[in-house]
């Protein structure tokens, strides 16, 4: 969790298993606690292991219904449920009935183990982790391999850029209210149970009586005296397999740009909100961004002009950068690395019309980067008027929820499923997200932002990962609008579906003490 660059060359195999022998399974877990990767920074680590369980899995392992009942409804209910599927956009082609795994009663997992290691060491680590017991304790449903792609996802964009920084020192004010600046620094409780979240409160999780003998391995709850915290240092893990139609995407972008390479890059950049990892594009905003003169970084060549054009600078947006001018001021939780600032130091405040980054652009949907009150709200009178709904400067001012309550930690891992006979060369992403509240974080982002065909007043779903599900009225949402400075419309119609959900489930990733508790049951 702590350091995303620990495993630059890792490959991961994610195994989903059915627990067939609970006693053996507990023994296996007990034997592996020492192997589980902790949050302690360790730059030398060359392998990692994480264990996470579905509600069913925990039940089979002997966790009592009383304890399970204290988990959130989303976790106990599971990802696959007709109402939830409707909200998450898991309908039509994404319908769980077509999934490779995660279908209740058929391929619903009890446990997922995430095994990471440098390529040459993977087999040895995998064997060590699984040991002799794995085969008798679990039956593997599906083994999900991944490929090393240097942080690129299959469409060719840099993945995993916008990540919240965790406030490990708990230095953030507990009850920050009505913030007026976007922050990338998240309260620990947004991602780990047992700590205060952005509301300054503790998210519900199972708490056991301190008198319970077995519970002695668990730490005391910070917020409720006399209780032991089963959730402490644990979190919910969302796993979704997303198949990406790479050739379909490239063909589409190419076709809609009259086979003009430069135009194609611009269209692809607008759809993602970021420039493809191997391209430059001319910025869609007319003037040179002010920060070029005063870059937020002290030294080094800003990557704003095209290679070989130093004498006659032609301003471009470099690979992987957002199609938004960067902010002059540092953003809490972005950096300190220069590269992070290039990729992440921006908000959409200067782009209320969506002429730089379209409203529908993927990164704008996934993280609208706003604050509690619109940026620029000043003084107590200003705040008061804004709170009362007045002094709005733009029709879009209050449309979106404050992002600090809706962040997720993402770990996408690309895969190339050559071994799949039905769909040879299937490519895609294993979407992994961590959050302390499934409903307020993952589900909110997915439902209200990503698949919402009314996001920021548009009439379309996400250009990259939308399912193109028509509205109840039959209105189509397979469009993509790029507002132009000229005011003239620029709309692409008939977007095909590029991303299909192939499997998924909600897991609980326990902390070490909870693992010990489970192993001792």
């Amino acid at each position, binding site marked *: 969790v702590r350091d995303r660059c620990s495993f630059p060359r890792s490959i991961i195999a994610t195994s989903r298993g059915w627990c067939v022998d609970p006693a053996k399974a507990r023994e296996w877990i007990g034997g592996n606690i020492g192997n589980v990767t902790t949050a302690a920074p360790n730059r030398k680590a060359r392998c990692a292991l994480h264990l996470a369980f579905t509600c069913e899995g925990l039940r089979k392992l002997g966790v009592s219904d009383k304890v399970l009942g204290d988990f959130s409804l989303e976790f106990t209910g599971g990802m696959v*449920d007709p109402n939830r599927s409707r909200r998450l956009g898991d309908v039509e082609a994404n319908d769980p009935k077509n999934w490779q795994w995660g279908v209740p009663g058929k391929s619903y997992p009890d446990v997922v183990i995430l095994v990471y290691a440098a390529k040459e060491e993977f087999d040895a680590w995998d064997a060590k982790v699984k040991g002799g017991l794995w085969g008798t304790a679990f039956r593997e449903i599906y083994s999900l391999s991944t490929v090393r792609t240097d942080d690129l996802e299959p469409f060719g964009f840099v993945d995993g850029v916008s990540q919240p920084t965790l406030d490990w020192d708990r230095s953030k004010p507990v009850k920050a209210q009505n913030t007026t600046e976007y922050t990338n620094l998240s309260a620990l409780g947004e991602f780990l149970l047992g700590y205060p979240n952005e509301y300054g409160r503790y998210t519900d999780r199972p708490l056991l009586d301190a008198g319970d003998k077995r519970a002695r391995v668990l730490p005391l709850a910070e917020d409720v005296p006399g209780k032991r915290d089963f959730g402490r240092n644990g979190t919910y893990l969302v796993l979704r397999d997303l198949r990406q139609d790479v050739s379909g995407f490239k063909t589409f972008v190419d076709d809609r740009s009259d086979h003009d390479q430069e135009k194609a890059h611009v269209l692809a950049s607008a759809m993602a909100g970021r420039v493809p990892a191997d391209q430059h594009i001319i910025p869609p905003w007319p003037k040179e961004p002010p920060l070029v003169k005063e870059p937020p970084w002290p030294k080094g060549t800003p990557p704003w002009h095209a290679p070989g054009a130093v004498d006659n600078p032609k301003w471009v947006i470099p690979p992987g950068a957002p199609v938004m001018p960067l902010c002059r001021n540092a953003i809490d939780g972005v950096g300190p690395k220069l590269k992070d600032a290039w990729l992440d130091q921006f908000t959409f405040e200067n782009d209320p019309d969506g002429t730089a980054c379209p409203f529908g652009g993927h990164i704008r949907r996934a993280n609208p980067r706003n604050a509690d009150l619109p940026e620029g709200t000043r003084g107590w009178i200003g705040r008061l008027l804004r709170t009362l709904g007045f002094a709005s400067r733009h029709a879009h001012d209050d449309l979106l929820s404050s992002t600090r309550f809706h962040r997720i930690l993402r770990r996408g891992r690309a895969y190339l499923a050559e071994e799949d006979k039905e769909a040879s060369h299937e490519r895609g992403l294993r979407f992994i997200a961590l959050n302390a509240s499934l409903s307020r974080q993952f589900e909110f982002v997915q439902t209200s932002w990503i698949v919402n065909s009314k996001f920021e007043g548009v009439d379309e779903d996400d250009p990259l990962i939308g399912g193109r599900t028509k509205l109840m009225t039959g209105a189509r949402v397979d469009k993509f609008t790029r507002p132009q400075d000229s005011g003239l419309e620029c709309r692409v119609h008939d977007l095909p579906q590029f991303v299909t959900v192939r499997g998924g489930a909600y897991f609980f990733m326990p902390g070490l003490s909870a693992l010990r508790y489970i192993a001792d049951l």
Partner: protein
Amino acid sequence: MTPQSNIVIHAPIRPGARGDLEKLLESMNLPAYPGMADPNNDLVPFGTFGVVHFARFVIVDDNTLKDFALVGLPVPEYPITLAFLCDFDGSANEFMTDLVDNAKAAAGLRKIFAHCLGFEPGSDLLVWMKQHRIRPAAPYVNWIGRTVLQVHKEAELRAALQNELTQYVKDHPNAGDDIRGVRNHLVRFAHENPNLLPVSAPTPIGWWICNWLHFAIIPVLLAVPWLFAVDDLIVRPWLLTFVVAPFGLLAIVVFIWLTCIATATFALLIALGLMLIPFFILYPLWLIPLLAVTVIFAVLLRWYEKTEPEAIARQTAEHDNALADLEDHDVTNQFTVVGSVKPSTFRLVLFVVIMWATNYGARHIYNRGYLTRIQTIHFAHWIFINDKRRMLFVSNYDGSRHAYMDDFINKVGWGLNFVFGSGVGYPRTRWIIFDGAKNELRFKDSNRNHQIATQVWYRAYPGLTAFDLARNTRVRKGLQRRWMRKAKIRAWLREV
């Protein structure tokens, strides 16, 4: 402008009739969409009236009454009731007559109300409805004066303009150089198709007068103290010059400033409020009773807030799923909650005053597309039932329920505390507007626990959010303006 009205018919259900009634109500819905009414259903074909914005039938059965037992109070008993709510254009009397005159709707309503106590085959439908009609303590209308017809016309207009613009840009590759020409073309296009533009009806004079008189209550109250000062000011005119005039000037400046960034009604209230400062400078003794009342109120309030028991059960999966079945089929959702008012005279009086203020604010200040920072509510009603011992709240909002709740907590948590803090089972508040909803998880539990299923829900414009409606109106208004700056034209074209 045609103002919107509502009817709320509320009556107890005959014992044992609930099952049949549920089945009957279900027959009004679209087969694939639980809870979503067929606009042309056999019982009450809402779609045929052309004026109905939203309508719903709800069986009111509060499942949180047991909360009283959790805090050691006797559990009250209420009969299970049926509520029929309808928001429409025009006056309530006209609409009820239309309902009764429509043979199909009249027969359907008779069939439905036959499950209610006191409705006999020989009953006069209109009379019975009027007998069982209650008026919401506070109705909220997103945009007073926007009719169903206008909504549909403006949506059509925008679609037509969009098509025309696409075609025009195709035919004129350099259209961007002459942005005024593009607008002129669209204006001409609209004039050639006058049926695209909505025709607005004159405002009923009676409604207009009543509305202004209602608004005048607060300004008059704020101005009344000055009546006592008239004599003094005549005798000592220098007071007028040196005390009143500077504040008067300030009030005028504030009024003009606020009129630009808020609403004129709000600006007037603030300006008149400011004028109380010089009054109290001249007559400081008047502050004594005022302060005394405030202190007594504050002490009482805090005492109640601190000592009232708080018991909030966790929501159950079963209840959550039953409600979720009815949600997220369209871009807009329904919401019905029922709860009890905290059992003390203090709370009841406070709640009534708060509801009056809410009504006043919704009617005169927040009637142009936003309720404080929330732009996603179409219609909402706070309705006292059972002699003000219980409250029924209904709303029609855009987006999913979680978004609605989170939006509320973060943007108007204070407002939620204000209007719901007097309910049993609401998270503890502090000074009426603080805490409460900020206790996110308990608030969400409380909220879901109090929510009940809406058996039949009708809406006139599926697929359109309140933002869409406001945007479509902006597009139409932009078309009707005589002149626009180029930057404005560009912004307008982007919205088309």
